[in-house]
């Protein structure tokens, strides 16, 4: 009884961490056992109507979404995702109204083809004004130019050539009035082909510069 400390005086410094710790533990347990975070994942068609595939996995199982509107729900990482149901259009429209309204419009993509080296085809030359006007829309914030080659020649040569192609288009666009601050340039060599081919195969459709206006 003699050891009893005067109450309150020491409590704030000594007890606060303990109370905090209990609070934290309680919170953690709540999250672990009630699985309060209920999550829904829904597969929908993209702007072109294309529907891909998605596999949703927790530590306890997985579900594959394959058809438009396929939905699975999770309620904790240690519980399996729910069986597939179909999300109602009303649920999508109400829950994702803001998200769907703010989605950036699809990018405008322009592909410019080359005869060989850095000689632009005549048809592709005609596309330049379209790129310029796309870049002048008020919502345009970036013009990314990527150079590509086919799979003939060495990597070193292709990397240099794809960069030359991209730079050539950059100077063409600058001359035509595209704002320099919008432009970025990258070279993909043979690494991002339109038509995948084995090494050494000449494929004119891969000799290109792709300009994407966002």
């Amino acid at each position, binding site marked *: 009884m003699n050891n009893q400390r005067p109450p309150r005086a020491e409590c704030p410094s000594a007890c606060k961490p303990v109370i905090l710790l209990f609070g934290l533990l309680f919170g953690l347990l709540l999250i672990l056992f009630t*699985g*309060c*975070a*209920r*999550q*829904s*994942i*829904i*597969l*929908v*068609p*993209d*702007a072109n109507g*294309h*529907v*891909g*595939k*998605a*596999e*949703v*996995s*927790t530590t306890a199982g997985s579900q594959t*979404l394959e058809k438009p509107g396929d939905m699975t729900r*999770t*309620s*904790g*990482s240690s*519980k399996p*995702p729910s069986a597939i149901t179909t*999300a109602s259009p009303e649920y*999508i429209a109400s*829950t*994702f*109204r*803001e*998200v*769907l*309204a*703010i*989605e*950036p419009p699809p*990018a405008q993509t322009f592909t410019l083809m080359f005869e060989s080296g850095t000689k632009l085809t005549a048809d592709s030359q005609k596309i330049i004004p379209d790129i310029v006007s796309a870049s002048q829309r008020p*919502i345009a*914030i*970036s013009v*990314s130019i990527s150079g590509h080659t086919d799979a003939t020649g060495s990597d070193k040569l292709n*990397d240099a050539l*794809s960069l030359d192609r991209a730079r050539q288009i950059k100077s063409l666009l600058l001359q035509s009035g595209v704002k320099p601050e919008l432009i*970025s340039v*990258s*070279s*993909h*060599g043979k*690494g*991002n082909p339109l038509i995948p081919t084995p090494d050494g195969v000449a494929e004119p459709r891969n000799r290109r510069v792709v300009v*994407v206006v*966002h």
Partner: protein
Amino acid sequence: MKTSVCTVLFALLLSTPAIADPPAETIGHIQTIEGLATIHRDGSTLPGKAGATLLRGDRIRTGKPGALGIVLTDDTTISLGSGSEMTLVDYAFEPKESKFALALQFVKGTLSYISGQIVKLAPDKVQLQTPDATIAVRGTKLLIEIKE
């Protein structure tokens, strides 16, 4: 004294390209925005605005109300509704070196995800994460709701 100045200059010369290149690489932009949103980067908070550049590691939050749309350099498109949060955990899009990575962490709120070129070129390098689940995708669009 002379030597130390030289050393410093030489070191600067050597280190400049390393500083200028990888860490500050733009991986995407905020394309559309309404209301309040913030970008959290290396302990600082930046205001979200249309045209803002995004870097690897950025955490993005929307206010209430607030909504925004992001486009990454491989065309991956992510939109967030009010009270939402996500992190651009990892990103690499270097077809020349066959180097690809995309790791997104969806933390809360309502989100849409439209896959880009990385999924086409290297589907196994794409990781989408919610608090409960991991999602493997093959070229597609997803809607995700994460209730707190």
